[in-house]
């Protein structure tokens, strides 16, 4: 997949992984992996980017005697997900245009 496209999709996938529940690094990767290849080192900059864009917030929770960082989607993050759904409709329309058959044949 095109790198730029994948980059945009990964942002959306991370937001989507937080759509219903707050989550942590390892679980986010596990949730996304069936759909898109993502490594631990890829996730970190995405989380930082989304956080500085105000789309997610983080907080720490004690878990088994250590701190685990959880991420929560913000209103702005939810709006990004909605915008993505609309954008995707446009992309599907483009895809139909790209793959159309010649009517004259």
């Amino acid at each position, binding site marked *: 997949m095109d790198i730029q496209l994948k980059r945009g999709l990964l942002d959306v996938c991370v937001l989507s992984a937080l759509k219903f529940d707050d989550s*942590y*690094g*390892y*679980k986010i*990767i596990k949730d996304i992996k069936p759909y898109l290849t993502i*490594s*631990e*080192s*890829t996730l*970190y*900059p*995405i989380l*930082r*980017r989304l956080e500085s864009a105000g789309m997610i917030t983080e907080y720490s929770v004690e878990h*088994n005697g*250590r*701190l*685990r*960082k959880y991420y929560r989607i913000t209103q702005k993050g939810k709006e990004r997900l909605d915008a993505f759904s609309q954008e995707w409709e446009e992309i599907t329309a483009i895809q139909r245009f790209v793959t159309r058959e010649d009517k004259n044949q």
Partner: protein
Amino acid sequence: MTKNEFLNILQKNLMNMSENERHHYTEYYSEIIDDSIEDGMSEQEAVASLGNIDGIMEQINTSGSVATSAKRRISVFGVIIFICASPVWLSFFGIYIAIWAVLAALYAADFAMAISGLAGMAAFLFILSNPASAFAVLGYSIFSVGLSIIACIGLNRLDFYFIRFTKWIFRSLKNFLTKEET
């Protein structure tokens, strides 16, 4: 590789980052390893699943603009302390300048020694009529050129450590006078 070994190597590779950023990265990878172990992997497997350190560093470096180090701004408290403490650090600054002056003087002396040695070698050819003096002068010249070379190497080392010391002072000063924006 154990978790601690991995985190140590990671830390060493992140030396050019701010302390804050380094801490974030270490915390992140430490958590991922702990979660993998909790999920049933052995410690070694958990570390291996992250891939090799070069690949991780490449990812970190290419995403550098994304995970930028925290911006720094002037710390008012630091500046006030810096101004109030000026009588103390100005006197140390005097010593610092004096050390550079001593180094410059030593270089000049070293240079003079090398020149006198070379001049002696040239003179040797002109006073060959008196072999005893001529060879004494040649001996002195070789000795003095040799000594100046050894002294130059020594001075270079001194320079090196002193420049490193200067860099360290500037870095510490920068950290003291500014603080990371959170």
